[in-house]
């Protein structure tokens, strides 16, 4: 029912045109309110997914981190003991070693993978024929299941009959304990990671190289720029977004490395290859210390977030 305009505004009616405007404003307000609800309703499924798959598990992790958890016939029993886990963390020198080993692993493996991936992308982009075939061949290591990679490299690294020591034997060297020498084991594992993940970096950067505007490069060449200058002044800046994406993806994945180290060395010898994920595994599944494991998980999550926040600025600047 339409009310007279003065009853709604408190002002004398200004005529039929004014009443129509007022009605249309009210209609717009109603529509806006409706739109707002509709927008929230559309967001609802995403919010539910976020709550169920992210917020709730993290909240549960926090609850576990401040508890001692024991299993009985009635299921898990949580006892609120925040200081117990925190005091253990404060005295856990091994965890600091694990963080250091992880950082070393991430920095070295990602740096090598980025450099190699970039070079390979440039080289394959310059291949005149069968580029598709070469690209497919290049990415094969990414497709191999991690368990197969671990087994294959473990055999290659084998002290007695591994192909690497056999090859060294042919030239009168070795054998070398690739996985048993504390000073060498981490680098042996890094080599496997580089072999496994460089093709991933290559794939992303290759797409970037293929998308570069040819005319800019040709113009630079005509202007007398050297290859090094073209790469440094044109290709790298233009590919910065792709490089940033590859770098962030690889860094996160390298931080979480588990399977290949578990299969190759189980963290040994000593602590030389024990990265944080492996330590988590030992705490959760070997020692059955769920509360302390949860606390370590939170520390690792915080470390990854800190890393992302720090690198975001740097990468953003680089990408611009």
């Amino acid at each position, binding site marked *: 029912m339409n009310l007279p305009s003065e009853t709604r505004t408190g002002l004398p009616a200004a005529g039929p045109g004014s009443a129509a405007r007022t009605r249309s404003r009210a209609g717009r307000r109603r529509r806006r309110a409706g739109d707002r609800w509709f927008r929230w309703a559309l967001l609802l499924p995403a919010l539910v997914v976020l709550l169920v798959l992210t917020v709730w598990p993290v909240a549960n992790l926090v609850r576990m981190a401040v508890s001692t958890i*024991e*299993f*009985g*016939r009635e*299921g*898990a029993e949580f006892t609120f003991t925040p200081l*117990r886990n925190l005091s*253990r963390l404060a*005295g856990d020198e*091994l965890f600091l070693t694990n963080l250091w080993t992880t950082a070393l692993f991430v920095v070295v493996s990602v740096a090598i993978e980025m450099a190699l991936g970039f070079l390979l992308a440039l080289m394959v982009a310059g291949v005149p024929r069968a580029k598709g075939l070469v690209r497919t061949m290049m990415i094969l290591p990414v497709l191999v299941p991690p368990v197969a990679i671990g087994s294959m490299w473990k055999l290659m690294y084998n*002290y*007695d009959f591994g192909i690497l020591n056999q090859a060294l034997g042919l030239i009168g060297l070795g*054998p070398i*304990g690739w*996985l*048993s*020498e*504390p000073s060498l*084991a981490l680098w042996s594992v890094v080599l496997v990671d580089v072999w496994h993940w460089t093709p991933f970096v290559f794939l992303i950067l290759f797409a970037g190289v293929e998308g570069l505007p040819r005319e800019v490069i040709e113009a630079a060449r005509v202007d007398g720029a050297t290859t090094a200058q073209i790469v440094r002044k044109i290709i790298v800046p233009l590919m910065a977004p792709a490089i940033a994406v590859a770098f962030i993806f690889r860094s996160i994945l390298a931080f979480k490395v588990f399977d290949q180290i578990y299969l190759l*060395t*189980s*963290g*040994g*010898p*000593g*602590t*030389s290859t024990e990265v944080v994920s492996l330590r988590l595994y*030992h705490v959760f*599944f*070997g*020692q*059955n*210390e769920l509360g302390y494991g949860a606390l370590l998980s939170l520390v690792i999550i915080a470390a990854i977030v800190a890393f992302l926040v720090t690198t975001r600025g740097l990468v953003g600047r680089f990408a611009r």
Partner: protein
Amino acid sequence: MTIRSFRQAFAAGLALAALVGAPALAEEAFLDVGKQEPITILINSSPWYLGFESVVDLYTEQTGNEVKIDATPYGGVLEKARNAVRTSQSPYDILNLDSGWTIEFYQSDVLRPLGEIVDGYEMPKEVFTCGGSYFWNAEKHFRTAEGGKLMAVPPNCNTHVLVYRKDLMEKPPATWDEVLSSCQKVQDKPKLYGFATRGERGNGIHYDFMPFLLSYGGSIVKDPEAGDYTVTINSPEALQALEQFIKIEHGCAPDNVAAMGQGDVIQLMSAGSAAMVETVIAAWPNYVDPTRSAVVDTVAAAPMPEGPSGRGVAIGNWHFAIPRNIPDERAKAAMAFIQWFLTEQAQTAYAEGGGIPVRADVLEKLSSQPKFAWMAAYKTNLEAGKQPLGFAEGAAVEQVIGLRLNQALVGEMSPAAALNTAAKEIEGIFKQSGRNTGMLDPLSE
């Protein structure tokens, strides 16, 4: 002949026939368990698994009862078992648990005492109790037959044996010093290593170091059964044992010994590349299988070498346990299998199939046969067997010792520093559990 005298003569004849025929019948007759529900067994695919599989086939054939086996690599068994007891109904009717894991399960009361399934059930007296790890005393929180309930039975009672090449040595070494001197005499590295045992971080080095530790009079904890959890791993005896262990490993084993696991050690002996190895008896089938071994005719087993305190043997046995969260019919079917499995006949068949029997009478009976000559060494070692980690924190303590020993072996720490660090960490674990604990004065580093 009167009717009475005829009856007497007939009865005497029957008795005589029974006496004469009894052994033959006993050899043939297996336990009749009747028709049972199908069962599923979670078991590790360890070296003795094939022997177990053959005896399960025999059970199925004899009884018509269905048995499914989930043979899982060692690393996955614990999590599968944990998940099984934490669900509403376990998919497994028998869980095979390693010695170190059992306390977690006993303590959380997720297993059924066997006497609750079959009223008053007790293990046959011929079956080894393997250091008492099949019993749980809930009041003491300790695995002991004294006041403890029977929670599981042994599918094997694993101990170390010294495996050696009789073509290279006239007699096996009797002491650790003799191991060192014999190895130096026979070895020709890298073609032939004198001696090897596991050096890899974790359970491997921890378990294989135990014969050294125990034979030198060392221990991990003072008297856990009496509630005294004073940590003793950093005693002078333990230091001597560790120094001897490192000396032998560095002097006789391959250079990569710090990364060597059970498979590597077994392979070394099977390939004819080692004169002596210390492995569990369960690995024996690998050495005498012509398809896998180059030393079938020259390999022999001996009791573990002695140290200043005699022979030290750690038992690393397995446990068949029945989860609480299965229906009664399935629990009864699982018990039927267990009872059948522990009979003399089934254990003999188990040995024939490559398994490691757990009955003294079967070992006695078979050890005179050349192909079962290893049984004498196994029996001798079992007599000295101990359960060094018979407390609830066993798994965490093993992780600590397994890491620190490995660090000492690779030279990341001195032996004294490794033992001091381990002692401090183990004391921390016990403190967190509220135990009456402490540690010895640190060794001089």
